[in-house]
């Protein structure tokens, strides 16, 4: 084969001899095994058949930083939400931008093979790879409540964090403990930053977080080699700098005192403010109203579909405050002088109108009764010539 013809493609790279022994081939697999892996990834991502070759190309590109993604106590919702992102898509991310080398849900390799590959990446790219943690970390009883490869999750996290260039905690569980850290917290679940003292962990809370908050953070990291501006809880300010309340499309209803009082009532069906149903928007920092979910356009987020916000991005709110509890309004409290949504409207019965109705009713009943009495009289007299006014 000729190398470097006018197509610009190095065909030698794809020759059997080259590829089998190329440097850094995935997990030390043979060419046959590697191509099978790529075809498997392409198939599971729903990509066309030829994409397997692109994956092979991309996977061997050493310019892209490797990413190790660890799962702890979680529901995989964060990964699910990422699978449904479209700009960029997950495959664009993992094929063009990063090299997702280890992800317990998405990797095709399993068991010892996958673990071996992870270890290899951690050694080879020490100080260069990105660590993403998804899920809480159990710490009680030595962290035995969540194990991968026979080793507690907490040890995996600490081990991988040693050589990580950057650490991102995705989801509420990794950011602040999530649902399993709620009282009584039987497994001693903790956030990633709590088991990594002294390390900077970028938190992307949310249950699930918006995938674009994660993708934007990753792209920022790759482009500028530093995390975006963070708040006190290490959340990127671009995503968690504003209250939901500030950008909520139902805010005008709040300001006008129009509230849904129960699910399915008139106000709820009219799209009134959900504050009185326990919406935590007034105390929750997130950009949900601005970017929505699922790339289906405006209104596709919990409050948009009629469900109160439960404050998933907030450690002190999500899974901690009861769903029905009123949010602490940080901007300004609703005045008691708001008009009641169920105030009576309409003119009601005026005495004169009632009198007219009663009068007409009485007249009709009276006239009918008189007519009937006369009819009875004539029925008895059986004299049809007798006539009376009705």
């Amino acid at each position, binding site marked *: 084969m000729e190398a470097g013809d006018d197509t610009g493609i190095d065909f030698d790279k794809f020759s059997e001899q080259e590829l089998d022994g190329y440097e850094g081939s995935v997990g030390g697999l043979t060419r046959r095994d590697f191509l099978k892996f790529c075809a498997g990834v392409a198939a599971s991502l729903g990509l066309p058949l030829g994409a397997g070759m692109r994956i092979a190309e991309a996977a061997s590109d050493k310019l892209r930083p490797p990413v190790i993604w660890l799962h702890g106590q979680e529901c995989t919702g964060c990964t699910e939400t990422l699978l449904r992102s479209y700009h960029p898509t997950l495959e664009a991310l993992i094929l063009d931008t990063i090299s997702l080398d280890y992800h317990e849900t998405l990797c095709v390799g399993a068991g010892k093979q996958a673990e071996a590959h992870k270890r290899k990446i951690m050694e080879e790219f020490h100080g260069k790879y990105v660590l993403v943690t998804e899920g809480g970390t159990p710490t009680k009883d030595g962290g035995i409540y969540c194990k991968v490869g026979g080793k507690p999750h907490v040890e995996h996290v600490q081990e991988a964090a040693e050589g990580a260039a950057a650490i991102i905690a995705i989801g509420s569980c990794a950011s602040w403990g999530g649902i399993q850290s709620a009282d009584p917290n039987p497994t001693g679940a903790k956030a990633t930053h709590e088991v990594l003292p002294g390390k900077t962990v970028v938190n992307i809370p949310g249950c699930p977080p918006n995938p674009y908050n994660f993708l934007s953070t990753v792209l920022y990291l790759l482009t500028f080699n530093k995390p975006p501006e963070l708040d006190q809880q290490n959340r990127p300010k671009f995503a968690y700098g504003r209250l939901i309340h500030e950008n909520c499309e139902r805010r005008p209803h709040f300001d006008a005192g129009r509230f849904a009082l129960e699910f399915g*009532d*008139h*106000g709820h069906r*009219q799209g009134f403010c959900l504050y009185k149903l326990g919406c935590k928007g007034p105390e929750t920092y997130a950009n949900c109203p601005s970017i929505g979910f699922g790339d289906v356009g405006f209104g596709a987020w919990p409050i948009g579909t009629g469900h109160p916000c439960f404050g998933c991005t907030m450690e002190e709110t999500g899974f901690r405050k009861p769903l029905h509890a009123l949010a602490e309004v940080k901007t300004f409290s609703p005045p008691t002088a708001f008009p009641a*949504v*169920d*105030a*009576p*409207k*309409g*003119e*009601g*019965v*005026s005495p*004169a*109108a*009632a009198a*007219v*109705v009663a009068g*007409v009713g009485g007249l009709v009943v009276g006239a*009918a009764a008189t*007519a*009937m*009495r*006369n*009819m*009875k009289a*004539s*029925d008895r007299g059986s004299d*049809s*010539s007798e*006539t*009376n*006014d*009705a």
Partner: protein
Amino acid sequence: MAHSPYQPLGGKLLTKPFMVLALLFAIGMYFIATRFAFGLGEVTNLNGGYPWGIWVVVDMIIGTAFGCGGFAMAILIYIFNKGEYHPLMRPAVLGGLFGYTLGGIAVIIDLGRYWNAYNLLLPWYMRPSSVMLEVSLCVMAYVLVLWIEFSPAFLERLGLKDAKRKLQRFMFLIIALGVLLPTMHQSSLGSMLLVMETQLSPLWFTTWLPLLFLITALAMGYAIVILEATLVTRAFGLPSEQRILSKLSPIVGWLLATFLALRLADILLRGHFPQMFEANLNALMFWIEGVLFVVPTVILLSPARRVEQAQMFLAAALLLAAGSLYRIDAYLVAYEPGNGWSYFPSVPELMVTIGVISLEIMLYLVFIKKLPVLHGIRNAQPREA
């Protein structure tokens, strides 16, 4: 005119009751003028929750049900071929004529932007799936049909025998339409409520609403014929039509029994039995309505009772009250738009409705006195009425 079995009643027009009615009509006219000068809000209590008030419910929905006499009698006379009821036909059509014409006028008064009403007739704006379109077109067409059905009375009065003979050739078509159109729109007046499932009390809301409205409209049509025949024959000293009326009553009785059975079965089938016994206005109205329907059913199905003129009259009056209440309940009382809205008609609003009804009675009196409407007048001694 000797050939026609129908005769004008004759007599003085400006009687005392007529003057009272004219006064009521004048008051109504004043408020109608106010409505057109200053808008609906000036006169009515209509609001965002109740855009339909008594002008629609009483003048139109109940008014046209009262006007179903011609429809009900046409079914009996022409479909079931019961020629012996023919003497009742022309006054029944006359009642329908006014019920429908004035109902239509009331709707125009009630329309917020009545100047747009002509759009209804433009085919490119028509939406064939709309119940409202069907009702409005049907009612308009039926008003026309009723005037044609009644026109032989004018032609006889004017002595246009040739024109009458020509018209008579196409009359079967008009009569067929006169049965078809009310069947369509009287049931559709019930269908209009089908979209209000969440707003209407489950005691009234049912997918059988169109059928229930049609049956009550028919029953009310017969009731108005009975009432009218009884009152007119007595007031003007005409020969009693009691014999023919008491033959009509078992038909109405069974119609009502069917209605009651359907209504009750429907509530039981849908599992809303407990709502009948709740302590609220809806349940109370349901029971009042029920009693008003049951009493005439019992009277009309009892052979001993229905021969008595007083009992018949009572049954017809109660039946009309029951049918009217059923419509008021379904459209206003049991209808709950939510969000705190309430509605009760204002005095001017009531006066317009009373004025329209007064006009109806006045026109009826003028027509039976001046046109050949009533049947078999021998040596009647018209009294002041």
